[in-house]
């Protein structure tokens, strides 16, 4: 089966959605135990976006966001990214450090803690995918960037730009119970990995 991001059928979209569901379920549990709060998880979205629309999913090109990015290698190749806006980042670090900081500045400890949260979320997501498919996934250490949404999302957009005119983003939105923290976790598999995943799931 040849996979074409510019023209994905509903069957493929359903499979990707289900992968997202399984991956993100564990990640939500991990996040909840880290902050000792209830975490709600939306049904994953499979977004197929024009490059000019990509930044809208994080509030527009110039919106200040934190992106924590991972490379996936071995059987499944691609990337994962956990993204959240600055308010959510401050609230999340306040919960982790059990304090009340009101200014919107992140210090080195905060940034390191956010990287670690991203790491735990991405790793639990990757572990679930690996357990489901029997495929090996090696996940890199996190790399963090605090900048404009457009600039951060140009990285996954370019990843798909090599093979398509749309970006494919399997997105799950997490929300802490009191709406103080909302984050998006993106699974961004390279197209070469799709066939492997489908074969492993017995649907190819």
């Amino acid at each position: 089966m040849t996979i074409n991001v510019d023209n994905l059928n509903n069957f493929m979209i359903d499979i990707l959605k289900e992968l997202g569901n399984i991956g993100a379920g564990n990640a939500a549990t991990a996040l909840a135990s880290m902050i000792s709060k209830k975490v709600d998880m939306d049904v994953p979205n499979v977004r197929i976006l024009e490059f000019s629309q990509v930044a809208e999913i994080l509030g527009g090109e110039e919106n200040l966001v934190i992106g924590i990015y991972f490379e996936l290698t071995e059987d499944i190749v691609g990337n994962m990214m956990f993204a959240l806006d600055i308010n959510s980042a401050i609230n999340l670090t306040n919960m982790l450090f059990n304090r009340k900081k009101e200014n919107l500045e992140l210090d080195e400890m905060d940034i390191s803690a956010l990287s670690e949260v991203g790491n735990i979320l991405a790793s639990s997501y990757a572990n679930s995918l690996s357990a489901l498919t029997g495929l090996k996934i090696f996940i890199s250490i996190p790399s963090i960037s605090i900048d404009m949404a457009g600039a951060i999302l140009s990285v996954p957009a370019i990843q798909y730009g090599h093979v398509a005119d749309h970006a494919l983003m399997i997105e799950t939105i997490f929300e802490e119970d009191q709406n103080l923290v909302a984050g998006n976790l993106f699974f961004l598999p390279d197209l070469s990995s799709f066939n492997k995943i489908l074969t492993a799931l017995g649907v190819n």
Partner: protein
Amino acid sequence: MDVNTIKVGMADLNLAKAPHLLTTLGLGSCVGITLYDKINKIAGLAHIMLPSSKEIKNNENKAKFADTGIEELLQSMLKIGANKNNLVAKIAGGSQMFNFNSNNDMLKIGERNVIATKSKLKELNIKIVSEDTGGNFGRTIILDSTDGSLYVKTIGHGEKTI
């Protein structure tokens, strides 16, 4: 006359005549290329994502690549009355948003985009009069077609006009 700001998205290009502005927001590893004819006051802006259309099968969108994007930008400007001898270029972007200790070419794409942009402009004999490229941060740029000035705005890395 009202001044319009024309927005150019990722993998896109557009033109403006004085007094209008051209902008592209949140450039990361992509490169914003501006061409300006100061006699006819015609400006053009391309927002390219990848260095070369030749390495890739899916290359119909010309504005996606440095090589075909610059060519397309030049041709569109000539069509509306720009003179190639008057054209000068300014470029911005091409940063590396995330750092990894790997040799993954994907992550050095910003640098490769800048190199490809410069080589295409050289091939076309268009002089680069100023640039703000590299680093690890995003940029918003605004090109003024009245004088060709390019305003560069960042989060935490200052702002300037080049």
